[in-house]
């Protein structure tokens, strides 16, 4: 049975007990009221009868007309009282009937007495026989009246008994009702402990176990009530959690295996793919050196092309490996000075190609939280690109700076070089994608792919704005990753 059903049942029984008690109290109350009324009535009858006795004596002493009239009046009143007393119990009704009988007899006797006296000579003395007869009648009448009075008292004590009965019954009902309510309370409490609180404690324990990571915990408290349902659902939940975890574990293992494979692959690429290229280049050079005199220019050119292609493929392989290394490298974020990095790269470019004169405009104090090694690689690629694509520009300028847009800091590297057509901007960051011919501007097309991966690893984004013949600007943002503890105020810029 469900707990809610049980709860409803218990509440119903309790309310019913209370209802029974209330009904009993009400019934007893009306019973007592009724019995009280009876008592009042019988008391009044008794008073009337006592009164009648007094009046009877009064008449016997004086035989006055006034006494007779008074007797009649009192007698009528007593009769009325008896007639109006509507009792229901058979005993009472029998007594009442008996009383009425006797009343009739008494009235008959009194009529006889008054008739003997006559209406007008009330005070006239009676002869001895008449007097004796009257006395006889009177004592008979008094005896009846006395019986009537006794009956009235009996009725009165019956009413009192009824009150006592009713009170006893009420006491019994109240006690029984209280006992029932107590039993219900004890039963409910026992049920609560056994069927609700104990399972809840079990559930609590189970949630603690699962929270602590013990997913193998099985509650195992099936039942047809809510707790049973909860327990079943709980076990189902841990089961599906277990399955999900196992699934994740499997996926993780697969991923780890895949990662290992990728590592092995790139290791193998790094070792094995370059070997044949070395042979091609080395033996071409050997041919040129040892048999150069036997080859015409076309033959030499072919060998040179083999060498150039081998070397170019070597660079491509190296770039590919660099790209995968950038993806695999662990991110170590600290606060770094981007301006300083840019200046160092600019100086090394100036040193490597002293023939070129480029104007550098590097904003000072560009502070950024990022991985120093990766960010240096990114800046190296961006600045090298700018350097390369301003190679045919008069008065080349390369600017590095930052600006705020939508409360975000965007860093940029801008040049006034050849630029590119924005129609091809979407292919800009793809690996080995090039927007210029190799003979115009050399390169493998991996640089921007590497830059994009580095920026993405910093949860940032990179995009470019350019115009053909007017230069290009590369913007990037970096999410200020909260690693380490060297949180310091941001220098302006």
């Amino acid at each position, binding site marked *: 049975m469900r707990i809610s059903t049980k709860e409803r049942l218990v509440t119903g029984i309790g309310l019913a007990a209370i209802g029974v008690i209330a009904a009993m109290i009400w019934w007893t109350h009306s019973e007592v009221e009724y019995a009280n009324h009876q008592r009042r009535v019988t008391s009044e009858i008794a008073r009337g009868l006592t009164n009648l006795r007094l009046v009877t004596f009064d008449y016997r002493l004086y035989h006055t007309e006034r006494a007779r009239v008074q007797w009649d009046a009192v007698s009528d009143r007593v009769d009325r009282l008896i007639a109006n007393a509507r009792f229901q119990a058979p005993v009472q009704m029998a007594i009442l009937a008996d009383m009425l009988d006797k009343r009739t007899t008494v009235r008959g006797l009194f009529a006889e007495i008054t008739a003997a006296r006559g209406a007008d000579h009330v005070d006239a003395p009676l002869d001895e026989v008449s007097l004796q007869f009257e006395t006889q009648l009177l004592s008979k009448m008094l005896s009846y009246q006395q019986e009537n009075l006794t009956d009235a008292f009996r009725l009165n004590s019956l009413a009192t008994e009824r009150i006592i009965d009713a009170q006893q019954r009420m006491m019994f009902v109240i006690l029984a009702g209280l006992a029932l309510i107590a039993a219900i309370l004890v039963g409910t409490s026992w049920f609560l402990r056994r069927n609700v609180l104990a399972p809840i404690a079990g559930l609590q324990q189970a949630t603690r176990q699962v929270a602590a990571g013990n997913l193998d915990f099985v509650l195992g408290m099936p039942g047809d009530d809510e707790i049973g349902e909860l327990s079943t659902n709980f076990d189902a939940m841990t089961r599906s959690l277990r399955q999900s975890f196992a699934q994740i574990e499997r996926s993780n293992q697969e991923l780890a295996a895949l990662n290992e494979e990728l590592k092995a692959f790139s290791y193998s690429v790094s*070792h094995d793919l*370059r*070997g044949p290229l070395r042979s091609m*280049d080395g033996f071409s050079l050997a041919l040129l050196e040892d048999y150069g005199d036997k080859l015409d220019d076309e033959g030499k050119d072919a060998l040179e092309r083999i060498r150039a292609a081998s070397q170019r493929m070597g660079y491509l392989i190296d770039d590919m490996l660099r790209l995968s290394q950038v993806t695999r490298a662990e991110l170590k974020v600290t606060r770094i000075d981007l301006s300083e990095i840019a200046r160092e790269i600019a100086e090394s470019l100036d040193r490597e190609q002293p023939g070129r004169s480029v104007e550098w405009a590097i904003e000072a104090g560009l502070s950024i939280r990022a991985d120093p090694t990766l960010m240096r690689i990114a800046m190296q690629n961006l600045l090298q690109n700018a350097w390369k694509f301003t190679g045919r520009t008069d008065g080349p300028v390369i600017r590095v700076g930052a600006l705020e847009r939508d409360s975000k800091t965007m860093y940029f590297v801008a040049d006034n070089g050849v630029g590119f057509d924005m129609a091809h901007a979407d292919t800009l960051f793809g690996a080995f994608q090039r927007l210029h011919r190799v003979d115009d501007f050399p390169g493998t097309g991996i640089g921007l792919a590497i830059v994009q991966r580095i920026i993405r690893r910093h949860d940032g984004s990179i995009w470019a704005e350019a115009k053909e013949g007017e230069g290009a600007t590369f913007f990037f943002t970096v999410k200020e990753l909260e690693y380490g503890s060297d949180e310091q105020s941001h220098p302006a810029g």
Partner: protein
Amino acid sequence: MDQMSKAILLVEDNPDDVKLTLRAFKRNNMLNPIVVARDGVEALDILFARGAYAERAGKPLPTLIILDLKLPRLDGLGVLKAVRGDARTRLIPVVIMTSSKEEQDLIQGYSLGANSYVRKPVDFAEFLEAVRVLGIYWLMMNSPPPERHIP
């Protein structure tokens, strides 16, 4: 002068690379005798006069070992470990010359006691230069440890 005197042990499985390395030595006028081992086990057999090279007992050890990392049977790092683990060969300079410049190889190579790590470039001209510098340093400039003989 014994054949192994001032000799270089080249541990390399790729015959092309053997040929190119020998050519590079010759072009740089480095006339030291060169012994080639085609795998890691053979290299150790030569060094410790074992197996097919048992008759080498008592002969001097090489002045320099040039070691590739990717080798059949026993890889270069295994050879390096064995060389550094034996008192007889512990002091011989070992130069790792390999295709890879994977960080893990570099770190493991140096931590196992390699003296130098050279990456073979694709461009043979660059390779020549690398071998030249290597030869100048390890064979001419560097004072090798006192000569030892295979027991």
